[in-house]
């Protein structure tokens, strides 16, 4: 497994994990009040921050794992930013994610036109962003495993 693929695996773990924690916090609050009154701005800022920090930690962990594996195998570690196959797989994953991002943007726009509480478009965009991240990473892992 290349360092690039390890990093994608880290992303595939981080996105659903952060989403699960965020929506658990939101839905726990919603147990005793309407969703529109839930405090979501601070949890969302924490979620974005955590996403960035965990992805950086994932890249660092991938680099360490790559170094250890190469050391054990007596090979030279490859920390480069992927080859033509990695880049092609990345473009493939991003193209899949683009569809979800576009859909999220479209739904959020409709919600704004309907003048609903800002909770709904904001969380629609957030959910679409998370799903786009999962789709991108999932598509890339599938391509790595089964071919492109």
């Amino acid at each position, binding site marked *: *497994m*290349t360092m690039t*693929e390890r990093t994608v695996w880290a992303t595939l773990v981080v996105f659903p994990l952060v989403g699960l924690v965020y929506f658990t916090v939101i839905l726990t609050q919603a147990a005793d009040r309407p969703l529109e009154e839930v405090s979501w701005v601070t949890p969302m800022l924490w979620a974005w921050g955590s996403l960035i920090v965990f992805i950086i930690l994932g890249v660092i962990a991938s680099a360490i794992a790559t170094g250890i594996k190469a050391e054990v195998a007596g*090979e030279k570690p*490859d920390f480069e930013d*992927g*080859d*033509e*196959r*990695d880049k092609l797989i990345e473009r493939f994953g991003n193209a899949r994610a683009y569809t979800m991002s576009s859909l999220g943007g479209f739904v959020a726009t409709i919600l704004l036109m309907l003048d609903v509480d800002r909770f709904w478009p904001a969380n629609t965009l957030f959910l679409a962003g998370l799903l786009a991240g999962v789709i991108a990473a999932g*598509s890339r892992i*599938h*391509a790595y*495993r*089964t*071919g*492109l």
Partner: protein
Amino acid sequence: MGRSTKVTNAIRALRFAHGEMTQADLAARIGVTRQTVIAIEQGRYSPSLEMAFQIARALEVPLDAVFQYPDEAA
């Protein structure tokens, strides 16, 4: 979504015929990761034309000795 390419190749046999060249050696010569060489050998990835030529050159054989494409009528 995953698809196997119709392009077949003789890289593995040619590597052994070429002084038992390892996948890592071939990967280093053409500037890709060993995993990409493995994916090409297993038919999970069709390389670009440029990489195909680099592989043929590294194995010192013509391109069509490395890669084959089945006849549609066959």
